């Protein structure tokens, strides 16, 4: 057979590509469900870890069902709040299917960047109104309550993100967890370590109606309420963490005020909470 004819070559490539594409499409469809679950479990684990729950995950036999079980047990409510502190959606069952769980914090961060780049006040205002921030309410095993907020920002090489657990009083953190996609291993990548994240325990973030910046400082933190040690050799990642938290806390500020006032948790569904579908402003999203 003459394999060097043009027609043979063309038909050969078409058949080859068709076969390969079919195989890949089938495998991708078959594994999609499992991959999606993995991504969701990862997020659930981050949320739980910020409140120092799900500590036994390393020794758990079936990681996915352990994390899902713990998540269902302790995370009792998921809220979507806007930058005015209003709760626009509340969900108490099947949290993983809730609007709050599905919010992409990367997209919200993109909106924040648009806000910073907006030319006039009116444009800025309307962009701010479009922000949707997730809040997870966590009932601790000891009876305490945590409000888990998210944050997302730019590190040195790629995005970094965090989940922070705010104590019931709304002024202090009880814990935080950080993750990144491509910071330098051993330097900026160290933000995921317990050593770094445990420094955020008991930090004051909200005082007298104002956000207190958590300062990531070099050469030893002195003020235990507001300062944490920077990572050695990772100045940009460290300052990025500080910038990211401050930026997101400022958007969460009106909601934090609600927590401080004691009404942040669980407004009765249907009374204070506007239904997601009925709000015309929200539908435009």
């Amino acid at each position: 057979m003459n394999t060097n004819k043009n027609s043979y070559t063309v038909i050969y490539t078409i058949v080859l590509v068709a076969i390969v594409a079919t195989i890949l499409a089938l495998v991708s469809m078959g594994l999609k469900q499992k991959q999606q679950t993995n991504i969701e479990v990862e997020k659930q684990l981050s949320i739980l870890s910020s409140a120092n729950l799900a500590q036994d995950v390393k020794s758990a036999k079936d990681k996915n069902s352990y994390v899902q079980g713990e998540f269902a047990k302790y995370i009792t409510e998921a809220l979507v709040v806007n930058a005015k502190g209003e709760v626009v959606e509340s969900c108490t069952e099947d949290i993983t299917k809730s609007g709050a769980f599905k919010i992409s914090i990367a997209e919200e961060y993109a909106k924040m960047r648009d806000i910073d780049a907006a030319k006039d006040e009116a444009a800025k205002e309307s962009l701010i109104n479009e922000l949707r921030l997730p809040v997870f309410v966590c009932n601790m095993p000891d009876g305490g309550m945590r409000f888990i907020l998210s944050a997302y920002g730019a590190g040195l090489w790629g995005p970094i993100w965090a989940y922070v657990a705010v104590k019931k009083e709304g002024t202090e953190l009880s814990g935080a967890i950080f993750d990144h996609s491509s910071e330098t291993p051993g330097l900026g990548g160290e933000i995921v370590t317990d050593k770094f994240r445990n420094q955020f325990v008991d930090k004051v973030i909200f005082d007298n109606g104002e956000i207190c910046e958590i300062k990531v400082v070099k050469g030893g933190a002195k003020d235990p309420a507001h300062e944490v040690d920077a990572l050695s050799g990772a100045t940009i990642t460290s300052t990025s963490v500080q910038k990211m938290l401050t930026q997101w806390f400022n958007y969460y500020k009106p909601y934090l005020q609600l927590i401080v006032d004691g009404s942040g948790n669980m407004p009765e569904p249907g009374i204070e909470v506007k239904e997601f579908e009925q709000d015309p402003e929200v539908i435009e999203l």
Partner: protein
Amino acid sequence: MDKKIFTTPILKQNPITVLVLGICSALAVTVKLEPAIVMAISVTLVTGLSSFLISLIRKTIPNRIRIIVQLVVVAMFVILIEQILKAYVYDVSKQLSVYVGLIITNCIIMGRIEAFGLTEKPLPSLVDGLANGLGYGLILIVVAFFRELIGSGTLFGAQIIPQSWYAANGGAYLNNGLFIMPPMALILIGCLIWIQRSIQKEDK
């Protein structure tokens, strides 16, 4: 079948230390042992299977587009492996991040298909591919062993250097941060090449 097809690529003609192929990923995924081993297995499977498949269809491949055909086959296996890792070992696939996808560009694979799979029978091609993957994996694991042990004081994530040795706990030991950085992988590979070359010189 000649036993040498299997043994030469692992030591005498090792793709990394002798042919100096596949260096890029050897630098990137050797910070910890676990991802290095997963990477070694992945590359071994891809080199073996793609060499086998190409050898199977070698007589039908139009010569002018043979590189493209090789690429399509290699890419297919790499994407399959990437999908499977994402579904079954999500943590590891996160650590390997883009490097699984970059197996496609690993010179060892295309090199072996061109040099062996395209002309030899399927079974020897499979063995040759697997052996080259193993040779690559062996170096990866040796490098990762030293980088994780000296750079982080752990192996497979478990602490090996006793906590009490560390300066923070009153000892006199510090992890060597240089081992975590890519340049150290290059230096380690350089040392391995040195050792291997000096041993093989004596053989002759």
